[in-house]
C-alpha cells in the first residue's frame, strides 16, 4: 500500500523520532523538573505525555503531506506568488454545492441553537457585513480606511436617535441609515480623493475619531457617554416585548408563551437574509465593469486615468457603497444591543474590521466571511483566556502576515469563456 500511494513510512518515522528528541530536549528541563524550595522534583509523566503528543502529531503531519491531497495543500501554502490565479473558463466552483447547504443550515439553526450561541452568531454576521463593506474600500479599491467604524456608528446612532426624535422604527431606518452612511462616505471621499496610502489612512483615522468624539460630547443631542436606547425590530407591527405598549405583542398574537429568544431569532433571520443579499450584490459587483474599475484603480491609478476612467466617480462609489454597508451593520448592532453608546465605536473596532479584511485575503468575499467569524466567534469560545484575547489576536496577525500574507482565501479571477464572435 505504501508503495502505491508513494508514502515513505521510514522517513516519517525518522521525522517522528527527531521531533520526539527535540521535544524531549525542550520540554524535559522546562516541564519535567520542578524547583521546589531547594529540591528538584522530577515530573516524568508530564514530559512523556508531551513528547508522545508531539511525536504523534509529527507522524500524522509527515504522513499527511505525503498523500496526494497533502501535497496539494503544501504546494498551495508554500507558493508565494502574489496570490491571484485565473481559473479555467469552464471551471465550476465547488461553492455551488456548498452555498445551498449553508443557506439551509443557516435558516434552521436559530430554532435549534441556544440563545447564547445565537447572540454570538448574530455578532459574527454583523462583522461579516462590516468586513464586506470595508472590503470594497480596502480590498477592491485599495483605499486604506482606518475610520470605518465611523459609518458603523452613524448606522447605529441613526436607529437610536431616529427612534428617539422622529419615532422611526427599525424598518424605516434600515434603508435610511444605509443612505446616511453612504452620504457620509461620499463626504469623506471628496477631500481624500487625491490622497494615497499613509496620508489617506491618517485622514480616515481622524474621521472615525471625529464621529466618536461628536457622539461623546454633543450631550444635548446624543446623551453623550450615557448612550441611547435603540428599538427592536417588529414583524408587521408585532413587537417582541413581553408587554406591548400598543397592540398585541408577537407571542400573544401567535398564542406562544413569552421567550426572550424570539427577538434574537427574528434579528438573526433578518440579518441572515440581509447578509445573503449583500453577498450576492458584492459578488455581482466584482464581475461588473464598476468592480473591475475598482480593482484596476487599486492596481494602477495612472493607467486607469490614461484609459479614460473617471477616478473621482470610481473612488466615490467605492467609499459610498462600503460606507452604506457599514451603516446597515450599525443598525443591526444597535437593535441587537438595544442600546448604543460611543464606547462601542473606538479605533479598536476599525482595526478589528481591517484585520478581518486583511486576514480574509484582500478582495476575497469568502475570505472575509470566514475571517469575520474567526475573529468574533473565537474570542467568545476563548472566554477563559479573556485577558489574553488581544495578545492572541496580535500573535495571530503576526503569524498570518509572515506565512500567509495574502490572507486565508486567495483571490481567483474568473477565466473568460470564448465569446461568440471572438476567435478561438
Amino acid at each position, binding site marked *: 500500500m505504501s508503495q502505491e500511494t508513494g508514502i515513505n513510512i521510514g522517513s516519517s518515522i525518522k521525522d517522528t523520532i527527531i521531533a520526539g528528541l527535540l521535544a524531549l530536549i525542550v520540554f524535559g528541563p522546562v516541564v519535567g523538573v520542578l524547583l521546589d524550595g531547594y529540591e528538584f522534583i522530577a515530573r516524568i509523566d508530564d514530559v512523556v505525555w508531551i513528547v508522545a503528543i508531539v511525536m504523534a502529531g509529527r507522524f500524522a503531519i509527515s504522513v499527511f503531506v505525503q498523500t496526494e491531497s497533502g501535497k496539494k495543500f503544501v504546494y498551495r501554502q508554500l507558493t508565494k506568488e*502574489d496570490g*491571484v*490565479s*485565473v481559473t*479555467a*473558463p469552464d471551471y465550476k466552483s465547488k461553492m455551488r454545492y456548498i452555498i445551498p447547504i449553508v443557506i439551509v443550515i443557516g435558516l434552521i439553526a436559530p430554532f435549534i441553537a441556544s440563545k447564547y450561541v445565537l447572540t454570538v452568531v448574530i455578532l459574527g454576521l454583523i462583522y461579516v457585513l462590516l468586513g464586506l463593506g470595508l472590503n470594497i474600500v480596502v480590498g477592491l479599491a485599495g483605499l486604506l480606511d482606518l475610520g470605518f467604524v465611523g459609518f458603523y456608528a452613524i448606522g447605529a446612532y441613526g436607529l437610536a436617535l431616529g427612534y428617539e426624535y422622529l419615532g422611526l422604527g427599525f424598518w424605516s431606518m434600515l434603508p435610511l441609515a444605509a443612505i446616511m452612511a453612504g452620504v457620509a462616505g461620499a463626504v469623506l471621499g471628496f477631500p481624500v480623493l487625491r490622497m494615497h496610502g499613509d496620508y489617506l489612512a491618517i485622514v480616515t483615522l481622524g474621521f472615525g475619531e471625529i464621529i466618536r468624539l461628536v457622539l461623546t460630547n454633543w450631550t444635548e443631542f446624543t446623551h453623550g457617554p450615557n448612550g441611547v436606547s435603540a428599538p427592536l425590530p417588529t414583524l408587521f407591527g408585532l413587537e417582541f416585548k413581553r408587554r406591548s405598549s400598543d397592540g398585541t405583542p408577537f407571542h400573544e398574537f401567535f398564542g406562544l408563551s413569552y421567550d426572550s429568544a424570539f427577538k434574537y431569532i427574528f434579528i438573526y433571520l433578518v440579518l441572515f437574509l440581509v447578509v445573503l443579499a449583500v453577498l450576492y450584490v458584492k459578488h455581482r459587483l466584482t464581475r461588473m*465593469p464598476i468592480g*473591475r*474599475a475598482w*480593482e*484596476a484603480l487599486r*492596481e*494602477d491609478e*495612472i*493607467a*486607469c*486615468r*490614461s*484609459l*479614460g*476612467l*473617471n*477616478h473621482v466617480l470610481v473612488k466615490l462609489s467605492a467609499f459610498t457603497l462600503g460606507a452604506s454597508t457599514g451603516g446597515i451593520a450599525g443598525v443591526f448592532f444597535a437593535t441587537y444591543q438595544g442600546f448604543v453608546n460611543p464606547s462601542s465605536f473606538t479605533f479598536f473596532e476599525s482595526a478589528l474590521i481591517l484585520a478581518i479584511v486583511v486576514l480574509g485575503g484582500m478582495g476575497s468575499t469568502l475570505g472575509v466571511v470566514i475571517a469575520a467569524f474567526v475573529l468574533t466567534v473565537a474570542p467568545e469560545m476563548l472566554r477563559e483566556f479573556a485577558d489574553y484575547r488581544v495578545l492572541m489576536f496580535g500573535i495571530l496577525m503576526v503569524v498570518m502576515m509572515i506565512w500567509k500574507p495574502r490572507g486565508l482565501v486567495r*483571490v481567483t*479571477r474568473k*477565466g*473568460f469563456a470564448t*465569446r*461568440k*464572435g*471572438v*476567435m478561438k
Partner: protein
Amino acid sequence: MSALLQFKDVDVHYGPIQALKKVCLEVNQGEIVTMIGSNGAGKSTLLMSIFGQPRISDGQIIYQGEDISQKSAHYVASNGLAQSPEGRRIFPGMSVEENLLMGTIPIGMEHCDEDMQRMFELFPRLKERRNQRASTMSGGEQQMLAIARALMSRPKLLLLDEPSLGLAPIIVKQIFQILADVASTGMTIFLVEQNANHALKLADRGYVLVNGEIRLTGSGDDLLVNPEVRDAYLGGH
C-alpha cells in the same frame, strides 16, 4: 491635411523648473509622427500634458479644433485619444482579457467582441495568453497588451510612450513591425521614443526634443541622416 493635434507655444513647469519651452508641433490625420530625445528632455512630460498631467502653464493644446489643455484626463481619453503609457502600466493582477476590457471604458462594450477579435489577429500571442495573469507575461508581450488595450477604445490618435523601453532588440523590432501594421490601417500615431533609429524609420515626420525645446524637425528620412540628430539622441548638446 488638417491638424488633428496641435501644440501652440506650450510651456510646462514643475515648480520653478521649466520642463517644456514654447513647444509647437502638430500631428495630422493619418500621419505617423515621432518625437525623439534623450532622458529628461521632456518627452513624457509632453505626452502626459495632453492629459493634463501636469497642467501646462502657458500655450494651447488643440485637439480637433478644441483647446483640451484644461480638460480632465478622462475627458481627453474618452474623446478618441488613447495612450500606451511609459513603462506599459498594464494591470498585473488581471487577466489579459480583463486588461483589454479595461480599454473599452471610453466607448462602452458595444464593439467589444469585434475589437477583441481584431486585437487577437494583430497580436496572436495575446490570444494564447488570454486567460493568463498579465504580470506573468514577458516584457514584450506586456507591451503588446498595452498597445492592444489602447487600441480597444477605437482611438483617432494613438499616443505611444517609449514602447521599446526595456525590451530586447529583437522584441523591439517586432513591436515596430506591429506598429507599422497598425499604421497601415490608417491609424494616426504619435510616438515618443529614445530609440531614434527605429522610430525615425517608421515615422513620416519627426521632432527632436532637447532640454524641453524642439531643436529640429523634418521628415523621418532627413532626420535619420542628420548629424545633429545623432548628438541629440545620444544625449550631447
